[in-house]
């Protein structure tokens, strides 16, 4: 039968764990993390990863720790048969190597952030009590910034301002009405705000540029607006609630992803025809279906290559096909994530002109692009999203292109990005100021 088998090695391990936990809790406090996390196996590695800004590694390490613990405890505490012991040892070894590698990645990166010798990283893996003691006592290992925690309070906008913005929203808009309170994600041990307080009305027939630096939440915003990933929000399209009626409305919303996600070994015609079969109502007459496919092929300049395999198309043609697949259902709201990436200036402009002509049919087209200045004149409005000091996506501006330039005090769209990007990203770090300035303007002007 099973029997307890605790020996002096186990006792020493426990003492070392307690000592390292004590000092690690002191170190966590430097990062504004509650010290008691240091005492919890698995969770301590996760929070160490958050200190190193390697959250995904932290998650993986936490999972491996959770899986490893029962095998370790069972194998080392109970007397079991040799066969069972061998299996347990094999699994524990497999998991142990994994957690060791992840911990090394986390701690070596932490050393890089603090600009200390990376050998400390390996010491963290094999004798963590030493770095726990040294790092918690030495000012040299003081972090540059605390780990961001999300307790729900908003340092940028007061409740009155938020209420004022919400009250000033025009409810009669027949285009796209966006009222995002917030969009959060819950990680293992923390909650994170991805977007906060984004309110706007976009009129039909407007082509809108979505501008924002890396990590500003552009794709999250698009997913929330199109109903693909729901936020704490109310999204109205033509007065209908996108979230409540998503199954019906998804065919009126076209989303073109950044990458050309098309089967390369299929013909252009069949690709478009299959898209039509999926997106158009089942009772569409075959003659209408064929005519729609032919007209979209014409409209996007793909008629001459309709029998070609997708893999034989040029970058521009492939991008147009990707757009045509969504356009086939004649969506009212059309969202494109970097449709001009990898295209030269002439082809990119030609593509944007096609989108302009779609907009001029009375639709709403929202486009993310990282080279906005070469096509800015084709747009009516610009949405400027920015990452605030807590790395939450915020609305810094929504309005016409010319007014945007005036608002940010710059002549170009890239100039706007420079103003709002954080300093460590080569910007001026004025994100929070513009978020506040625009919010106050929304309260006053609407």
């Amino acid at each position, binding site marked *: 039968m099973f029997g307890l088998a605790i020996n002096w090695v186990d006792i020493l391990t426990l003492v070392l764990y307690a000592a390292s936990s004590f000092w690690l809790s002191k170190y966590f406090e430097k990062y504004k993390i509650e010290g008691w996390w240091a005492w919890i196996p698995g969770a301590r590695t996760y929070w160490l990863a958050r200190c190193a800004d390697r959250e995904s590694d932290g998650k993986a390490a936490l999972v491996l720790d959770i899986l490893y613990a029962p095998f370790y405890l069972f194998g080392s505490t109970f007397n079991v048969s040799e066969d069972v012991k061998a299996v347990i040892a094999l699994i524990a070894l497999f998991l142990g190597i994994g957690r060791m590698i992840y911990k090394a990645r986390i701690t070596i990166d932490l050393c890089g952030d603090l600009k200390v010798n990376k050998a400390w990283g390996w010491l963290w893996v094999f004798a963590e009590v030493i770095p726990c003691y040294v790092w918690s006592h030495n000012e040299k290992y003081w972090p540059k910034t605390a780990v961001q925690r999300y307790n729900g309070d908003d340092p940028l906008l007061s409740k009155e301002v938020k209420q004022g913005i919400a009250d000033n929203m025009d409810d009669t808009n027949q*285009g796209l009405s966006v009222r995002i309170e917030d969009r959060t994600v819950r990680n293992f041990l923390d909650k994170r705000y991805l977007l906060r307080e984004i309110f706007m009305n976009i009129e039909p027939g407007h082509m809108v540029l979505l501008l924002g630096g890396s990590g500003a939440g552009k794709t999250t915003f698009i997913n929330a607006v199109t109903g693909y990933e729901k936020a704490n929000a109310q999204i109205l399209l033509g007065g209908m609630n996108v979230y409540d009626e998503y199954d019906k409305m*998804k065919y*009126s919303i076209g*989303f073109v992803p950044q990458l050309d996600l098309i*089967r390369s070994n299929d013909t252009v015609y*069949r690709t478009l025809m299959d898209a039509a*079969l999926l997106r158009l109502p089942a*009772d569409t007459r075959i003659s209408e279906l064929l005519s729609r496919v032919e007209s979209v092929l014409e409209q996007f300049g793909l008629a001459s290559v309709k029998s070609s395999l997708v893999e034989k198309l040029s970058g521009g043609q492939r991008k147009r096909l990707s757009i045509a697949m969504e356009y086939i259902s004649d969506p009212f709201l059309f969202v494109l994530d970097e449709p001009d990436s990898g295209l030269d200036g002439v082809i990119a402009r030609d593509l944007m002109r096609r989108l302009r002509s779609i907009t001029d049919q*009375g639709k709403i087209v929202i486009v993310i692009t990282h080279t906005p200045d070469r096509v800015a*004149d084709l747009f009516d409005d610009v949405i400027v999203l920015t990452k605030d000091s807590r790395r939450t996506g915020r609305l810094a501006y929504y309005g016409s292109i010319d007014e945007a330039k005036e608002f940010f005090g710059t002549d170009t769209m890239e100039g706007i990005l420079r103003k709002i990007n954080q300093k460590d990203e080569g910007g001026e770090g004025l994100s929070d100021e513009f978020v506040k300035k625009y919010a106050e303007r929304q309260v006053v002007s609407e």
Partner: protein
Amino acid sequence: MSTENKTAAEVNTNEQNKKPAKSFSLMQGRHRGRLAQIPIYLGKDFRMFIYQNDWKVLPMAALIAGMIGFVVGENMFVTMEGTFQCSLALTCICIWNGFFNSIQSVCRERPIIKREHRSGMHISSYITAHLIYQMFLCVMQAVLTVGVFKMVGLKFPEKGFITSWFLLDIWITLFLTTYAADITSLFISCIVHTTTTAMTVMPFMLIFQLVFSGGAFTLSGPAAVLTNVTISKYGLVALCAQSNYNSLKSVTLWNTIFKLRERSEEIKEALYLIEKEGQLENILAESGKSMQVAAYEMTKTNIYSCWGHLLFFTVLFAVLSIIVLEFIDNDHR
């Protein structure tokens, strides 16, 4: 080219070409349901068969069958040892073919599936289309394997045990084994996110099937229990049972004694007498009786049970594939 230029030139800027704003109207009518979407994806699969060179799995199956048939086919249905070797090799061929058919089929287009799921594609339709397409591949591979074995001179019994034709009996087992492996592999392809991971996992699955087939190695204890979850066990048992393994002669004992003839004059003399008096066949048959395996009993119940297990694996992994792939929206960007 002219169309492109014309379109580009004709498109004017917003100020020149703006039309009055159109109000939103919801698209009317029902969209294609699960059943109606199946032909769309089935068509795609068959076009991939032609354009993406998926057809190569068919000649590959014929080639492997040819090699195996040439090497181990001679004693199939003749001796216990030859029948067992050939049955094991056939099972391995089926599992290899099945795994290769679909191991990359889903994971190679995962982002595309995610996009199409967002546009209204039903995962159950997508997987069902794959099930039909993979069934076509497995049917063809099983036909090719039986055909090639016949071509290399393997002498099959004429009368079948379950059906009227022995070839049909064998074909059913080969098909079910290949298809079960194929759908297991489809499930793996639904779990993993990249083709690299899929191709890393596949050898482990093959080794697992071989080691725990219950035929290649003698297993006991928990390892023997594991054989019950392998496709290879049921494929092997069905083939051995259909081949009437337990009624065949065994040559192991005779071959061992034959090797000892140079060491002992008495053994040499005894062997000579056995052959001279025509007792060799009796000895081989008696030797076979001592080598019988209860699991390979040629009964309808036994064969139906093996087929049932193979079908069960197929259905199980097909359902699991649908369930797993339903979570594709959670894929990170």
